[in-house]
């Protein structure tokens, strides 16, 4: 990205942080709840953005990792486990499952991969719904406690919001480091030209699995926060709908752009609420807006921003690249 782009991104980032910290003091619990939901969804979307945006592996399974994470946290904490343990176990579990889900990606790409992961999401939903002995089935798990962090109780909405924001900050920093490390470079190489990457010693196989594993574990973290945020979980919340929604966040925000998920989650979580004054029409209008947005900036909001910042460069969106590549 150009220096101009960087500076603008910097300014926006700082402004956003200021708003995020100040906001809860001006908001009622409802607004704070929405912001917390935004933070949680952003974490999940950041994970998907790594898998899809940077490494170019389409996944419609992110919802099931949010689900696995949420259920791990809910089941353990309602059985008296400390939240921290549940939190990291959720991430670890998703890391492992994500790694396994990566194997199909070594055989197939693009829409085929999309459908394998889509199938996975639905299978996980069926298990969550039907294995009542473990998940309480369709009844869901209620009264999920909110954690106390080093003696600081996050029971109150604002406290829990800051807890989510804290996790988001840590995750963002880690991701920032990751995509800027040689790994991030290798992921992008994987996305843009796996064959060339391999001829340069990039172990495409391992990086593909890694992209799935890390992306999924972030989904798990998001889930582990979702459970105590809503304090009730049931299987339908983690069905295909959420996966598509997370995909929407990544694409709308700008796939392969670091700040894409933040923006995408903003659109997906806040825009519908914002449109509620239109009563019954809010979802219709929301859908229409998404379509228009995609028509006018297929590379997502940040893709548009980038284009506006340097009009010289013709549109060469990350997506076009990742999709035109022959793949495995």
């Amino acid at each position, binding site marked *: 990205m150009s220096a101009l782009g960087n500076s603008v991104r910097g300014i926006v980032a700082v402004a956003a942080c200021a708003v995020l910290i100040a906001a809860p003091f001006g908001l009622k619990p409802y607004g704070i709840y929405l912001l917390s939901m935004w933070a949680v969804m952003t974490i999940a979307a950041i994970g998907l953005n790594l898998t899809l945006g940077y490494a170019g592996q389409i996944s419609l399974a992110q919802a099931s990792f949010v689900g696995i994470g949420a259920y791990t946290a809910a089941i353990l904490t309602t059985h008296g486990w400390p939240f921290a343990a549940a939190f990291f176990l959720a991430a670890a579990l998703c890391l492992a499952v994500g790694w396994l889900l990566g194997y199909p990606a070594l055989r197939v790409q693009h829409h085929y991969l999309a459908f394998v992961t889509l199938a996975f999401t639905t299978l996980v939903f069926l298990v969550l719904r039907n294995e009542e002995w473990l998940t309480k089935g369709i009844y869901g798990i209620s009264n999920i406690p909110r954690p106390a962090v080093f003696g600081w109780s996050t029971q109150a909405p604002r406290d829990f919001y800051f807890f989510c924001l804290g996790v988001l900050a840590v995750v963002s920093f880690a991701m920032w480091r990751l995509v800027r490390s040689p790994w991030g470079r290798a992921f992008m190489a994987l996305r843009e030209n796996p064959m060339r990457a391999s001829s340069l010693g990039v172990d495409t196989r391992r990086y593909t699995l890694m992209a799935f594993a890390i992306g999924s574990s972030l989904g798990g973290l998001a889930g582990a926060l979702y459970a105590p945020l809503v304090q009730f979980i049931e299987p339908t919340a983690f069905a295909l709908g959420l996966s598509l929604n997370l995909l929407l966040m990544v694409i709308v925000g700008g796939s392969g752009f670091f700040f894409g998920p933040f923006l995408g989650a903003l659109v997906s979580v806040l825009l519908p609420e914002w449109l509620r004054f239109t009563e019954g029409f809010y979802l219709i209008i929301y859908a229409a807006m998404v379509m228009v947005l*995609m028509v006018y900036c297929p590379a997502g909001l940040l893709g548009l921003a980038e284009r506006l910042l340097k009009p010289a460069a013709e549109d060469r969106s990350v997506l076009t690249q990742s999709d035109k590549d022959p793949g495995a």
Partner: protein
Amino acid sequence: MTDLIQLLVAGLATGAIYALVAVGFTLLWQTSQTINFAQGEFVMVPAFFVLAAMKFGGLSFPVAILVGIAASVLILGAVFKRLLVDPMIRHGVLPLVISTIALALFLKEGVKEFYGAEAQSFPALWTTTHVTIAGAVVSLQNLVIIGVAVVTIAVLQWFLGRTRTGRCMQATAQNPALARILGIRVERMILYTFLINAALVALASLLISPIYLAKFSNGETLGIVAFIAAIVGGFNQVRGAIVGGLLLGVIDNLVAAYLSTQYRGAIPLFLLIAVILFRPQGLLGRAEERSV
């Protein structure tokens, strides 16, 4: 034994519907790499065109049907391509996937707002009498559906394989660049596939609505099942779609009856994964066409 026949016929009937929806999906994919996540809603909408034509237009059922089909072909075919597909086609699959997801929501909510959430009963095209085959009671409806689907797809096969336009469309699907060089009007051919898809979903809509009833949420499961059918049968194969569709319909019933009702949805998914991983060209697909 009678049970088995019962299950098979019912399964085939449901499967025939999946097939009709899957074929259109396959066509769109072949010619324009469009993965239409609104395909299910496309089946839900035409029924409401017909109902609206009767309710607000005061038309008789047969006329309303024609109006409905025309409206579908125009809106779900031409307009859909113009407004959504064309602007995004250059930008790869994903933006289009997102907008069709949004379109699905748009259609669902639209129908719900303007026609109501209630399931609407839809006049049947024929009497709902039952016939007995080898002890199994089978509704005429089911047989008609199977018949119509098979005939339609046979005709489509013939059209694509034997007529000039059809062959041009196939050429377009297999190698647009070359087709263009050969002087085929690629754009028009792509448009045709969208119109055909719209006609097919309209047909499916008319066939199922008397049984499924017209309801805004009807598309939700249908679309996904159609995808699965298309891929299982062979993504690059019109013929494959009907095999995939029928197979899924039957499997669903057999699983529900003999294995588990709670996991009836799981088996097709395992089938899907297995096919993609070990035979990505689909059961009927030809290996060299696999676009992996």
